[in-house]
């Protein structure tokens, strides 16, 4: 059974999620890749361009929308490029990260300390994931093109909790079950 999550997703909700839970997210989420993270944190003294408390950040840069469509293909990008920035983002209130691929020990420590969860979306399924996006608008850094921050209104956006706020990590536990030496 999928767990329905509605944004903003609080720390209390995050603490109830366990690695392996399949979720469906509805509400507002923001895209940000490395360039947007870098700029947000370099300018943090002037305030964040998004409401960072209890925010959900999707590591993604969509392909351009065709006329009449809210967004182009929009799957996750590889998350380790955000490892340098995520601990600070989590400290400032980010509670959910959506991406794909491994995270550093520092990120996982911050997730445990402050209460944040890492959700995997299916990498390379950009067309399928786009069908869960109802609206998309640019919030900041338009000059970055695909790397700008976009506000997405999503409905039942599918994901799986890969690393929970206790440090349980599917990338470590699951492959071991299927390894044949």
């Amino acid at each position, binding site marked *: 059974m999928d767990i329905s999550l509605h944004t903003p997703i609080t720390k209390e909700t995050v603490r109830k999620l366990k690695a392996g839970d399949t979720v469906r997210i509805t509400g507002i989420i923001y895209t940000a890749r490395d360039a947007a993270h870098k700029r947000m944190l370099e300018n943090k003294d002037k305030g964040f361009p998004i409401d960072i408390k209890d925010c959900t950040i999707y590591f993604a840069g*969509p392909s351009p929308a065709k006329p009449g469509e809210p967004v182009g293909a929009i799957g996750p990008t590889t998350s380790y490029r955000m490892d340098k920035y995520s601990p600070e983002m989590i400290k400032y209130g980010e509670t959910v990260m959506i991406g794909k691929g491994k995270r550093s020990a520092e990120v996982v420590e911050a997730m445990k300390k402050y209460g944040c969860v890492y959700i995997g979306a299916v990498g390379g399924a950009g*067309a399928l994931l786009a069908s869960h996006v109802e609206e998309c608008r640019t919030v900041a850094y338009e000059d970055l093109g695909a790397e700008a921050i976009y506000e997405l209104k999503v409905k039942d956006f599918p994901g799986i909790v890969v690393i929970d706020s206790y440090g349980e990590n599917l*990338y470590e536990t699951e492959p071991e079950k299927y390894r044949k030496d």
Partner: protein
Amino acid sequence: MKIINKDTIIENVKNLCIKANCVLNSDIKRAFEEGLKNEESPTAKTILSNLIENADIAEKRNMPICQDTGMAVVFADIGQEVYIEGGSLSDAINEGIRRGYTEGFLRKSVVYDPVCDRKNTKDNTPAIIHYNITEGDSLKITVAPKGFGSENMSRIYMLKPSDGRDGVIDCVLKTIEEAGPNPCPPMIVGVGIGGNFEYSAYLAKKALLRPVGKNSEKPYLEKIEKEILERANKTGIGPQGLGGRTTVLWAACEDYPTHIAGMPIAINISCHVTRHSECIL
């Protein structure tokens, strides 16, 4: 001698960009179905079904299979009896990329300066073009957009001749295991063996053009490919790195003579959206 106008090249490259990015080749779709049959993990089965559904949506709606529509890699095999009129072949290819990525609503992912400004070129040019002069009077153009989630997981090893066949297979497996979930498994693995430093990488890229399911015609390479595939699918990494049997859909090796002192190996990791589309003019 055959005369080919630059406009013909532009139009064809444009169409190849769009086709390669929006229509998943049937060999990969078949590999998904095959993976689904053999898979033991329920999560892996769900993911493989998602990938089949994703390809269907992309094709139906003529939208990119993956938002990372890549940096455009182009292989141009040009017959020595071909004359290009109206401009240079490189300019024509880049103009085709420009139009394909703009008119096809594909993502522009190329930056001018790799280190400091990283300013987007806004039209996905320049392409990376590999020219090959052939006999005859035809021009074969292959457009192979390559995403960087998997490109970043690729490696080159300058092995010693004494490392032998096992050394080759071990470093391919090491690359696959280190990549884990990052390159969007199930992966397709291109291996270039021999040549020198840069030529091994070219061979690895070229190996990715081989259809899934087709082994090398060289018996020793075929054996290496089979062993890589078998061992990679025992690692347990599985689709998206969440466990399972379907870690690598295919492994293809290409070789070239090398120096007495060396044995270069390049491993070009590619994702389940390994794209290439070609035309012959």
